[in-house]
Structure formats: structure tokens, C-alpha cells
């Protein structure tokens, strides 16, 4: 539905609400150093546990948007609030810790760590959180089991592509995030595995109470989502 950059307006009151949205994006703009503007005054809100697909064509800035939400890039203007905390106001290690504990990320190519077992890939995510160390192993095993991975000690490259995706999902959920960002999570999968992966991601997010923002160019991914919006490319020549 979105042909423009502004998706949904949120009042400041909703931001301050204790049970308010998991994610609020307000007036978010971003330009690369070369001058090309990718996002221009984007706004959106995602309630707690809400699931949403943001459809976008290639080059529309969907990865950039997710990186901005995760605090990995600095916006030109606007702000991003996760659990009522403006992530870009946090500096250095504070922002890293906040991202690690509140935001789970799922990537198109999974980005599992070489040399680490499936279990270790998941426990590594908890290493930077406040989850007690004694619980790491048990929680990681439970997540992997929930996602149908039995070979916990297997190196990721020995697993099938679909299994690797599920390990990546387990890792994203490890720290009980309030927001999961999924960047083209099915792009590396065949249609059957893609549908299964989206179903699993949605189920696990619902069970964990995490909001899900899934960006994809694939219309099939959006099937079954109540909320589907579109991210259009920023107008050309609007460099900052």
C-alpha cells in the first residue's frame, strides 16, 4: 500500500505508553556519503508482538532501513525508538548492548559464525546480554529443538540451507528480543523451505512475544500477514 516513505504516524503519547509499540520510526532520512538519498522522512510503528511485512524492490533501502533501526547506521534525521528508547541517543557499548538484548536480526545469508557449532552460534548471542550464563545452554538447546535442529554440535556448514536458516532464527531469538528484524530471510531458500521458514519465524516470534518486521521483495512471503506495507524508493536527486 505504501508508495510513499511515510507509512504510519504515531503520537508521542503512544511512545510513552508502558505497553506502547515495540518500534517507532519517525521522520527517518538517510543518505549515503556519495549524496544519494535512500530514505526520506520514513515513519512507521510496530506494536508489541505485531508482525509486518515491508515489501520493497531492490535498491529501495530495505537493508539500510533495518540497519538504521538496529542502530548500525546513523540517520540524517528522524529517530528510532525501540521499547521507548531512542537507540541513536545511546553511544558506543551501551547501544551495542541494547541492540544485542532487544533486537534480533535474521539475514538473507544467515551470517552464521565459522568455526562455531550450531549451539555455539546461539549461545554467542546471549554472551553479550544480561541472561544468566547458567541459562544460556538450556535456552539455546530449547530454541534449537523448537526449530527442529537436533545436531546441536554440528558446524553450520554441515547443515542444510534450511537448517542453517533455522539456526539463524534461534540465534535471533536467543536474547528474548522485543523486535526481530528479518532481511530477505527466504532469498536463499527454495519456495517450499521459504514458506516453512516464514511460518517458523512467525510462530517463534509469536511464542516469544517479539514484534516482527520482515522486509522482502518476494510477494509470496507476505501471504498470511495481516499487515503488509510497501517501501518505495526515495525520490531521485534529493541528496542531502
Amino acid at each position, binding site marked *: 500500500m505504501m508508495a510513499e516513505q511515510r507509512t504510519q504516524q504515531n503520537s508521542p503519547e503512544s511512545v510513552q505508553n508502558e505497553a506502547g509499540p515495540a518500534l517507532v520510526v519517525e521522520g527517518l532520512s538517510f543518505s549515503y556519503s556519495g549524496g544519494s538519498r535512500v530514505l526520506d522522512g520514513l515513519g512507521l510503528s510496530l506494536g508489541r508482538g505485531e508482525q509486518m511485512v515491508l515489501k520493497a524492490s531492490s535498491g529501495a533501502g530495505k537493508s539500510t532501513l533495518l*540497519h538504521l533501526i*538496529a542502530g*548500525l547506521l546513523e540517520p540524517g534525521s528522524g529517530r528510532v525508538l525501540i521499547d521507548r528508547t531512542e537507540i541513536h541517543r545511546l553511544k*558506543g557499548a551501551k547501544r551495542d548492548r541494547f541492540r*544485542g538484548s532487544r533486537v534480533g536480526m535474521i539475514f538473507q545469508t544467515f551470517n552464521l559464525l565459522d*568455526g*562455531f557449532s550450531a549451539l555455539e552460534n546461539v549461545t554467542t548471542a546471549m554472551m553479550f546480554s544480561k541472561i544468566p550464563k547458567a541459562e544460556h*545452554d538450556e535456552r539455546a538447546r530449547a530454541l534449537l529443538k523448537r526449530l527442529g535442529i537436533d545436531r546441536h554440535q554440528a558446524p553450520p556448514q554441515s547443515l542444510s540451507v534450511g537448517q542453517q536458516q533455522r539456526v539463524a532464527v534461534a540465534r535471533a531469538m536467543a536474547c528474548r528480543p522485543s523486535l526481530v528484524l528479518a532481511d530477505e530471510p527466504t532469498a536463499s531458500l527454495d519456495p517450499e523451505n521459504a514458506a516453512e521458514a516464514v511460518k517458523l519465524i512467525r510462530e517463534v516470534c509469536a511464542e516469544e512475544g517479539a514484534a516482527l518486521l520482515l522486509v522482502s521483495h518476494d510477494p509470496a512471503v507476505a501471504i498470511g500477514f495481516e499487515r503488509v506495507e510497501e517501501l518505495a524508493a526515495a525520490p531521485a536527486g534529493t541528496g542531502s
Partner: protein
Amino acid sequence: MAMSGLKIVARSLRVRAVSTLISAFSVAVAVAMLLTLLTLSRANDRAFEAGTGNADLIVSREPSGLVSVLNTFFYAAAPVDYIDWATFERQLNSPGPRRMPPIALIGDTGWYIPVAIGDSYRGRAVLATTPEFFEKFKPRADGDGWSFAQGRPIEGAFDLVLGSDTARATGLAIGEIVHLTHGAPGPGGQLPEDAHVHTDFDFRVVGILERTGTAHDRALFSHIEGSWRMHASDLGDESARDLETPVAPQHQKVTAVLIKAGGRPGSTVTAAFAPLQSDLTRMTGLTIANPATEVRRLLRIVSNIDQVLIAMAVVILLSSGVSILLSLYNSMATRRRQIAVLRVLGASRKRIFSMVIAESAFIGLLGGLVGVVLAVVAGGLVAQALWMRVGVMLDPSLELVPVLWTLGGTVVLAVLAGLAPAAVAYRTSVAGNLRPLV
């Protein structure tokens, strides 16, 4: 089990196992070289300083004092010239420039003992001397006198005492008969195949010495009277075979005389030392040397070489630090994605920086520890080789303080080498390295 920073470091090192081991090995070789040189240099100094025993002076006809010390105390080679013993004793008892004989400076508390080197047994030097040698001469400057594992010192003209290593190597036992070979072996322990064996003179083993940790352990000790009679007989003087007949003065040859200046009992410094050395120096054609001074002179020469070698080892250690730097720096190109993922998972820039530094420090520590083990092995091998070839017994055991300093220095060097790769990791763009691989 929960993950930790150290586990991530270990996993990262394991993924790059070949590069890690090569870097660690280069450090190990450098550390081993440095520690071996430091240890053997110190051990060498101690061995040479202690190996001259308690003699104040050595008198010989060698071309230099240092040569006479090396030949007499370390059995480096056979002396080339002899002292006529009767003449020497006469000079010792003749009034000199002080209107008193040099022997007066030796007195009752000092001593002088003749020694002759020139024969051997199975490649091991035989030192011919008098029974006083075992009573008054101490083999180590820093130790006690001789101690016998079995038997007794020489008494009769054809008695023979074995150094501890000689007894072990030859298997000779008390009471066995030995025929000495004419000629003393060189540093390689080799004698001409046609060397003359004195088969007509039976020397009997009467004692086996305890280990002294000096070159004497590799020697045999005969009575000088037996040596004189044997060589006199070789020269056609058959009367020398008759033990009742004194050995003719012209056959009484010695290669050196060990002298202890007289002094007050228990005193190690004596006022008689300098005038005695002066008087003896006036004896025509003799080389007079203070063994301790000669050894110090030798060590000064050797220490210059040691310093060059140690400097080279330090340079090699520094280059191994460069190896760590290059290994880690090159690995950064393939690790940007891993670093980016760790950042997404919550690792701070400082955490990433410290992990790379920890990797570097671990390579340094691993290399250092392996280097210590290599140094122990290399030290033992070098000490054994020196013992076999030169007869100098070194203690190759490592001292704790240099080991700790070297290990600490190696880790610091590795940390410094890791700074540049760690800075690269610190600055790694997260968003830029999370994009799908094309």
C-alpha cells in the same frame, strides 16, 4: 556451556589453525634461540670460571697463558713443549731478585704440583701428576676437593684413577689393567690410527672419582713417575723399568705446574701471590698465568660474540612479532563479516578490539611456552655436544627470571603486534559487511 570472550578467541584461532601455528612457531624458534643463548652464555661463564680449580698460577711452556689453561684444565689439546722438572725445582729454590727463593712465597701453606698431559686412553686424555694433586688441588674453584666413588687416589707409579664420565663410558672397574696410548686427543677426541700403545706398561685402575662437573670427569689420572718411566723406556733407557732406580732427571718432563701461593690458613687472598708471579715470570722461557684471569679474558672475548648472537636472537624475535602482525592483519579481510555479526549480537568495538589483542597475546604466549620447551631441549643438546667435544660441562637448566622476562616480553611484543589488526577490527563497518555475498 556458555560462550565467553576466550572461547570466541579460541574458535577464531582454531579456524585459522595453520596461520596460528606458523606464527606461534616463528615466535617459539626465536624464544628458544634467545633463551638457549642466554642460558648457555651464563652456564658457559660459570663452567669456565669454576673449571680451573683452586690454583693461583699455572706455569708452562705454552705460547700463551690462555692456551696453557685450556690445555691443562680443559684438555683442549696436547701441550707442545715441556718443562724440565728438575731445572724448574732448582729455579724455584734459587734466590731471585728479592734475595729469597720463590719457594719461600709458597711456603708451608701453598703448594706446587707437576702435571703432564700427552697420553690418552680410548680418546680420553690422561693427566699424569703426583698424589698431592688429589690432596691439595680442588677441581672446582667454587667447590670441595676430590671425592672417590670407589677405590683410592694414586700411590704407586702405575696406579690409575678414572674420572666419573670416563668410568661410565669405558666400563673400566677397579683392578683392571689399562694400556695408555701415546698422544693426547684433540677437541674431537681423535688420535691417529697408528698411535703407539704402551702395551709394555700395565696401569692398574685403583680409584673412580665422583662427578665434579668439570672437564676432569672425562680424563684419567696416572702417577707422573709411571709416565716418566714409560717415556724414558720408549727413549731406550731400560733402567727406567726398575722401580728401585730413580728416574733420570732428563726424563722428568712436565707440561705444567699448578701453584698455590702461600698465605694464612683459610685466607683466599694472599700477599705472596703477586711477588710469586713476578719471580716466576723472570724464569726464562716460562709462561706464567693466573687461571682466573685467563678465563676472564676468554669470557670477555666470548661475551662479545654472545652479545652479537643474543642481539640477533632479539631481532628474530622482533621479526616473529611482525609475523603475528601480518597473520592477523591479513586475516582481517576474511573476518570482517564475523566481526560485523558479533557487533550485531551486542559486542562493542572495545570488546572486538580486546579479542583481537587477546588472539595476538595468545599466539605470543603459545610461541613463548613452546620456545621454553625447545630451549630446554636445545640447551641439553648443546651442553652434551660441548661436553663431548670440548670437555666443558655446562648446566643447561633454565633460570626462572630470564624465562619469565622472555615470556613477558614475548607477550608484550605480541600485544603490540596485534594493535594494528585490532584497530582494523575496531573500525570495521558493521552495515557494510552484513550485505549478502555476491
